């Protein structure tokens, strides 16, 4: 039994089946990267782990507790041990950076204001955002917002960190910065991480294992070395980044295809 167990997880929205019998297990201290095309259910997987969505069948267990069977209070207890980093950071835009990072501490920890300040500064330092505590989210760039989101997620010292496409929409340099921040957090905090990303470079640096979701199913979950050599045509097409192959459910029209060739 791993720290996080995803067992036969299925989820559909109306007629659209997003996840179909996904099985994954993440050990304590392990770093799993989940790859997959847009709309293949990667974010839905994370939302099921957080209990933001309820599975149609199957279940997610965190430390042996089945998320969908917990009461609201039990779920909130489990969530305190999980830090979630959203794709667009989801910072509270009416609050400053400091208030965002301090939010969980003020609500769940019996800390003095001095202790809260020290912890917020420590978290901001870990993500390279020291000195931004008085700024509002609207004054930050995309990469800065993501890093403040990371700081907010680690403030409660979680055992598990979930990253939902942390590099999407960022320039290559900032993508690398974010990749290094995730790696630093993993080494310094020793947390278990699940990262959803399209960025293969940082995926191979961060990952202990890489999983690939394809049409709602997990078709590979291996160490980066084995994954790179996986002969599955979908894996190889994804690694090459080619338009031709079985990966696309909705391939480009023929004319466009010729132009690409």
């Amino acid at each position, binding site marked *: 039994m791993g720290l996080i167990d995803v067992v036969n997880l299925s989820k559909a929205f109306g007629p659209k089946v997003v996840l179909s019998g996904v099985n994954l297990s993440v050990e304590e201290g392990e770093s799993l990267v989940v790859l997959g095309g847009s709309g293949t259910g990667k974010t839905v997987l994370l*939302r099921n782990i957080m209990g*933001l969505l309820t599975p149609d069948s199957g279940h997610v267990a965190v430390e042996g507790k089945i998320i969908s069977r917990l009461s609201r209070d039990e779920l*909130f207890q489990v969530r305190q041990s999980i*830090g979630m980093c959203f794709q667009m950071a*989801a910072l509270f*835009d009416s609050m400053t950076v400091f208030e965002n990072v301090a939010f969980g501490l003020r609500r769940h920890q019996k800390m003095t204001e001095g202790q809260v300040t020290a912890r917020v500064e420590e978290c901001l330092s870990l993500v390279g955002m020291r000195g931004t505590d008085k700024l509002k989210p609207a004054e930050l760039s995309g990469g800065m917002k993501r890093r403040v989101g990371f700081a*907010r997620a680690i403030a409660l010292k979680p055992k598990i960190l979930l990253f939902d496409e942390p590099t999407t929409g960022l320039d290559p340099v900032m993508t690398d910065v974010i990749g290094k921040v995730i790696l630093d957090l993993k080494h310094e905090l020793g947390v278990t991480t699940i990262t959803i990303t399209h960025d293969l470079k940082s995926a191979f640096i961060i990952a202990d294992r890489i999983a690939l979701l394809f049409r709602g199913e997990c078709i590979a979950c291996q160490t980066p070395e084995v994954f790179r050599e996986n002969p599955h045509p979908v894996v190889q097409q994804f690694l090459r980044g080619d338009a031709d192959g079985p990966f696309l459910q909705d391939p480009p029209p023929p004319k466009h295809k010729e132009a690409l060739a």
Partner: protein
Amino acid sequence: MVLTFFDKAGSGVLRAMDTAGDFAVLSGRTFAAIFKRPFDGANLLRQFQAVGINSLPVVVLTSLAVSMVFAVQLAFGFKQFQAEGLASQVEGLAVMRELAPVITGLMLAGRVGSAMAAELGTMQVTEQIDALECLATDPIHYLFVPRLIASAVMLPILTAVSVYVGFWGGYLILVGVEGQSAYVYGNEFYKLLAFRDLRIALYKAFVFGMIIALVGCWKGYRTQGGAEGVGNAPTSSVVTSSLWILISDFFLTKLLLV
């Protein structure tokens, strides 16, 4: 053709019941969360300011305008029967029993309810409400409860302000323009009123406050579809809460005047 009609009517009824059920469940969860911990005093004070203090100018101006218009109409009407003296009595009755609570309720539905729907709607589509959940914070407790308490407390206070302003609105017209005696106006305004009327007005305002907060939060919380959804939420909130204020006003009046 007939089958299609029944099919559409049936699905409409089911949809309406689904919506009503969803509102009832969220409202129930809000009342159940009132006494839950942690108590966030700063958040509550911010809502008191947003709902109460910031709404004072609009409540004062609308109450003044409506009470003045009403006084003009009363003075004109009663003049037909040489009964100008009754104008101040009816003005007092109308302001206290209906105009103050209803006008305050409707103005706050527009000013505060729409702001709640827009704020929560934006939070919903930008995943801020999911972020609250992930930070082990119940959005109902953190977002709904302070707004409900602030509205339920501030609406009666603003209604009392509206009654006071209404008195001076009538004074400006009936004393200042129509030439009635200030002393007589001061006595006549309250002549037909009893303490019960003030209590009824405050009860009504209390209910209107709850309607405004619950509908505004509910519409915002259930926002879907990005910018269009955020745009629709305040409009829908104002229309729904205004409608319910007017409907509940009828039933409350019937119930409380017996």
